[in-house]
């Protein structure tokens, strides 16, 4: 019999308790409450529900595929080559992530992209491309270039090397990014509402409609379960896939990238500039419209109604720091548990960590109200906001770090143990240096998720402190050309802040062990 490893167990306990108390418990409470009153006579609504479920599924699959394809050129360029502005370019792609849907929606509408499935798909690619570029790029930059060169020397074409060497090695990261993009688009709300016109609805939109407008909590709960089942099935397939296809190639530390030469001299700038221009179009529309009047000056002036708009920046930053610290700590613990554990329990643990990404915001928000009143009333507490943000951010930390952790050969850890290192020291000296880059990518995501989050927190009762997205929406909810220009100006500042912060996080190292 194996001895119980208490250290291991306590590392698992923290993320398990966090997810258990702040996600699983509220979810179970609200769903049981909803279902206890359920007497569905699905008379005639089945057809509509089936139609909504089907649309939700296929648009999510298509959005995911398109996002992967659109991200490929830029991912290749920034992970394989060193060039001036590489880090800036990688930071710029995260901007869409923080822009409130209503603002981007307005930009898309101004461009005439609306009321069509094409607009929905384009917006999904716009919002999620950073997930692929950063997640896949983090792994790609660590694949030993010798493998590629060996293939070339042995006479394989560039395409053949990519298909038979690089792509299989990248699979875990591609699958991870695809899973996240799928979950985001499967539960898409604002984009579908604003750009889809009246004809398109996802399950998320329908859950909102049933729960909030029509007060049909039982039917909303039933729909939330349908959504959860869909999400769980996808995640299960994903985790099976990941287990089968993970290779433990020794990854190198992030080394020096070569400067582009030959064909890359043309392809790299085309990929990077092309992607950035495509992403910039809606942002430029925003920026141009923010220049009316004295919108930027207005942001630092005391507004009689909403206060000084720019003061919301400090609220946003405070929440974002707390949320990303929570997400990185708990995410890393969870990632090491997922990596070391084998078998069903570990798989379900991993899957549960991902679920908050794919769960309807209305359901979780109302779940908090029902479940978190006792023993300590957290429902209208300051802390619930960063906690809610961390729930969404933890999967990012886990997904960016697990592929890297899995790639560490077990022999390396065993050798250290044989040499007398404690489990803590093994983790500190072997896992941490290798995983620190990936963890920083996760931290950057956690930060921008918290900065940009609006949807989920609008279903939580909260103190009236406004974050930047909340302030933008407040300004946009009153008439007046000044309000409109100020809202867009604040969005532009939020975007600029994001770039600066992501650049800064990218430069962070865990002491001196970031590279070796």
């Amino acid at each position: 019999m194996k001895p119980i490893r208490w250290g291991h167990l306590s590392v698992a306990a923290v993320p398990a308790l966090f997810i258990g108390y702040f996600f699983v418990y509220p979810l179970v409470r609200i769903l049981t409450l909803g279902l206890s009153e359920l007497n569905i006579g699905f008379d005639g609504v089945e057809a509509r529900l089936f139609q909504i479920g089907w649309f939700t599924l296929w648009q999510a699959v298509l959005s995911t595929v398109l996002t992967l394809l659109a991200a490929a050129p830029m991912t290749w360029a920034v992970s394989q080559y060193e060039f001036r502005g590489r880090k800036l370019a990688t930071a710029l792609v995260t901007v869409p992530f923080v822009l409130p849907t209503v603002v981007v929606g307005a930009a898309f509408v101004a461009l005439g992209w609306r009321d069509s499935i094409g607009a929905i798909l384009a917006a999904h690619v716009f919002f999620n491309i950073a997930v692929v570029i950063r997640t896949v790029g983090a792994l790609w930059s660590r694949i030993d270039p010798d493998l590629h060169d060996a293939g070339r020397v042995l006479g394989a074409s560039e395409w053949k090397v990519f298909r038979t060497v690089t792509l299989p090695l990248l699979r875990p990261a591609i699958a991870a990014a695809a899973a996240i993009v799928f979950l985001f688009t499967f539960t898409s709300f604002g984009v579908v509402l604003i750009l889809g016109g009246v004809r398109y609805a996802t399950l998320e939109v329908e859950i909102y409609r049933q729960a909030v407008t029509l007060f049909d909590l039982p039917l909303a709960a039933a729909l939330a379960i349908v959504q959860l089942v869909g999400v769980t099935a996808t995640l299960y397939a994903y985790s099976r896939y990941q287990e089968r296809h993970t290779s433990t190639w020794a990854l190198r530390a992030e080394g020096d990238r070569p400067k582009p030469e030959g064909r890359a001299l043309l392809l790299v700038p085309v990929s990077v500039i092309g992607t950035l221009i495509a992403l910039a179009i809606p942002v430029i529309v925003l920026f141009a419209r923010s220049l009316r009047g004295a919108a930027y000056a207005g942001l630092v002036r005391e507004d009689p109604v909403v206060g000084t708009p720019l003061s919301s920046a400090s609220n946003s930053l405070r929440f974002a720091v707390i949320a990303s610290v929570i997400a990185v700590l708990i995410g890393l613990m969870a990632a090491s548990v997922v990596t070391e554990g084998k078998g069903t329990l570990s798989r379900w643990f991993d899957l549960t960590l991902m679920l908050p990404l794919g769960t309807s915001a209305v359901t979780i928000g109302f779940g908090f109200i029902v479940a978190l009143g006792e023993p300590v009333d957290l429902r209208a507490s300051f802390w619930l906001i960063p906690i809610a943000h961390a729930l969404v951010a933890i999967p990012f930390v886990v997904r960016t770090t697990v592929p890297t952790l899995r790639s560490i050969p077990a022999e390396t850890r065993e050798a250290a143990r044989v040499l007398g290192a404690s489990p803590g020291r093994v983790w500190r000296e072997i896992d941490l240096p290798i995983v620190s880059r990936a963890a920083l990518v996760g931290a950057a995501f956690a930060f921008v998720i918290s900065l940009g989050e609006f949807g989920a927190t609008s279903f939580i009762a909260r103190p009236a402190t406004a974050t930047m997205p909340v302030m933008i929406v407040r300004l946009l909810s009153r008439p007046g050309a000044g309000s409109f220009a100020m809202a867009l100006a604040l969005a532009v500042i939020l975007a600029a802040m994001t770039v600066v912060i992501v650049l800064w996080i990218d430069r962070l190292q865990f002491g001196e062990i970031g590279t070796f």
Partner: protein
Amino acid sequence: MRKTLALLVMIAAAAACGPDEAGTPEMLRLMAHDSFAGSVNEETFAAFTDATGIEVEIIAAGDAGSMVNQAALSKDNPLADVLFGVDDTFLSRALDEEIFVEHVSPALEGVGDEFIPETALVTPIDYGDVCINYDKSWFADAGTPVPIELDQLREPGYAGALTVEHPATSSPGLAFVLATIDEYGEGAWLEFWSDLESGGVGVVPDWDTAYYSDFTQYGGDSPMVVSYASSPPAEVIFATEPIDEAPTGVVEAGCYRQIEYAGILAGTDYPEAAGQLIDFMLSVEFQETVPLTWFVFPVNESAELPPEFVENITIPADPARLDPATIAENRDRWIDEWVAVMER
């Protein structure tokens, strides 16, 4: 053993006293929808705090529908002492869930009869009219007269020039649908919408999109959108450069009156103090801040309207209203029927 028993009795006695119900709390929690919570500043309740020593903490709870749901889900252990911002369209739901306790404010004497509900569970605080807004310069340039009755909108020229919000996701959207039901009655309102649909009326999910994306005033294609009677004065107050006259106006037909209520949440430890807060919200002092803070009208007839608000305002002569119980009974069906006509 006896000692333990004595201790238990003491604890029980202490617990029974609990919060001092006769006394005043240090703080009251006021739960409100985001558009109110977002426009309240420190001064809004300063006079109340000065008079009573009670601080007011605002809790933001999403839109009005989300707020009523949150209050219903937490009725055994309420999130706040007072809820503000429930309107006629959501009132029945709140009453069905029994989330309020009664309070008859002495300040109701100054409130017009048309605002006072049949129940003492909620107290009216403000009202506003949902109306079609039009772009003055567009109508002047096109030489088209501004419509004066709803029926004119049936003509394709007008229908195609109008954008409305979806009644399932937007409160002004629902209000406008209710106005058409009030105008045409159960038998005929859908025909009106059918004509609008064939005429090319625009439908968007929410007010922000209608106003800031579709309205010609902001670069869109629609010279008419469903908004509020108070939007034109807001255009003047929140303009980029100072202007004297609002660039937009109000179509006086098809307006719907929304009244917002406050209520004491059942389960509060401080019903008396909560009542004082509601009385304060009806006081002339507070009521006079209402127009410029969140662009609605005070229900207290003694409250004076600020001049910059009055100059550009159109108060519709005869706005539509429906009984909250009728709305509660039929809302889901009306929305379904509307969707069936509009999404074919």
